[in-house]
């Protein structure tokens, strides 16, 4: 779910940057200086976790994890994903400067939406946690693929087929993300339940 350099039109690239700037500003405003270290180190751990290649049949996929990022960081997902993608660009050359804004948007908007849609259910309804966590992982990737498709269609209407292909190709990823999110959230809710809410929400320390 990564749109390469040189594909999108100027207006899409610029709006991507503008919206990412707004989201990042909201995220940074919610973070005090004492949260900066937490976002930084967690962002590094999401970066490493997204390098894990999970087998699926004869091939493998790497996880996107924006559902979990959203649950753990809330609006902090914007700066975290922006930074992770910048590092990915500098260290591995996955993507460059112009598509940074739109690619951050594609991953961070679903993250924040998942935080609002599923966060409180996961925290407060232990019975529903499995189903909700699956929905969270699945929806985050699904929305990301839809946003990526939308960015392509806004660039060039002929991208319609490509956009549909992107969404269809991501269905296995959505299912695997859902499954991994179920286990990961289940694990965190047993071991460290207080991590499952964005830390700017409450004052009690971890």
């Amino acid at each position, binding site marked *: 779910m990564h749109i390469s350099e040189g594909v999108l039109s100027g207006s899409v690239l610029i709006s991507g940057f503008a919206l990412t700037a707004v989201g990042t500003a909201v995220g940074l405003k919610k973070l005090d200086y004492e949260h900066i*270290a937490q976002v930084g180190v967690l962002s590094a751990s999401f970066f490493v976790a997204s390098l894990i290649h999970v087998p699926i049949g004869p091939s493998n996929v790497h996880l996107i994890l924006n559902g979990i990022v959203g649950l753990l960081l809330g609006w902090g997902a914007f700066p975290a994903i922006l930074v992770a993608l910048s590092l990915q660009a500098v260290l591995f050359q996955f993507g460059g400067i112009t598509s940074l804004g739109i690619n951050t948007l594609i991953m961070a908007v679903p993250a924040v939406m998942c935080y609002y849609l599923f966060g409180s259910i996961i925290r407060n309804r232990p019975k529903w946690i499995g189903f909700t966590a699956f929905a969270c992982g699945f929806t985050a990737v699904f929305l990301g693929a839809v946003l990526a498709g939308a960015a392509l269609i806004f660039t060039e209407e002929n991208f319609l087929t490509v956009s549909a292909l992107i969404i269809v190709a991501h269905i296995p990823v959505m299912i695997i993300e859902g499954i991994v999110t179920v286990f990961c959230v289940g694990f965190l809710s047993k071991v460290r339940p207080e991590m499952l809410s964005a830390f700017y929400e409450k004052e009690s320390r971890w």
Partner: protein
Amino acid sequence: MISEFFINDTFFIQRLDPRLRIVFATAYSFAVALFAHLQTLITALLISCMMLVMAGVNFRVLAKRLLAFNSLVLLLWLVLPITFSGEALYYIGPFTITREGVLFSAQITLKSNAIMLAFIALIATTPVSVIGHALEKLFIPQKIVHILLLTYRYVFVIEQEYQRLIRAIKTRGFIPKTNIHTYKTYAYLMGMIFIRSVDRAQRVYQAMICRGFEGKFHSMDLFALKRQDYICLPFMTTTIIGLEVLEWIVTI
């Protein structure tokens, strides 16, 4: 292992002021991203190659990276020519290859390569710590720069932690397959990494407080434009203006 392959500051481009490189790379990338004509794009690709030579990057790693992102471009070549509507060039079975589709694919190929080569020459050759401090000097908000620097600092530490956990599960006979057990194992592994990073972040913040952190990371790099920067500045400006003029000439 994660590492920075392209750094070798004996080469000309790598000795330029990082701020200048960031500003030029951004302006150049956006300029190229907005071009539409093949003539301009080919010129841009040649200019990017020249920058790459001046940056003295490791060509073996470069080839690997180019292969990786051009395989994505190859996917576009498989899909775009047959899905675009327009003037038909060839018919292959039920598919029609259109002129517009081929042109658009060629455009994307040239653009993405020109942008990525320039990015590798100008930005990937700079240590992230230097990029962070340069961004701060370029009026990027301090908080995001701090997150970038901390992420960079800990990405290597956490990767080692990840390698340690992987060794542990392999020692216990874990073989990744397409089954629930594998997904569960990876999910728990990630969960463990997240928990450890949160604990680590706590300690990092305490250490920062002990050393009197007041919301600023001080940098020992003095950013000052030197003679080579002043010599390069007109060349950089001319490159972008020249390309824009070329695009305009081709249009009319």
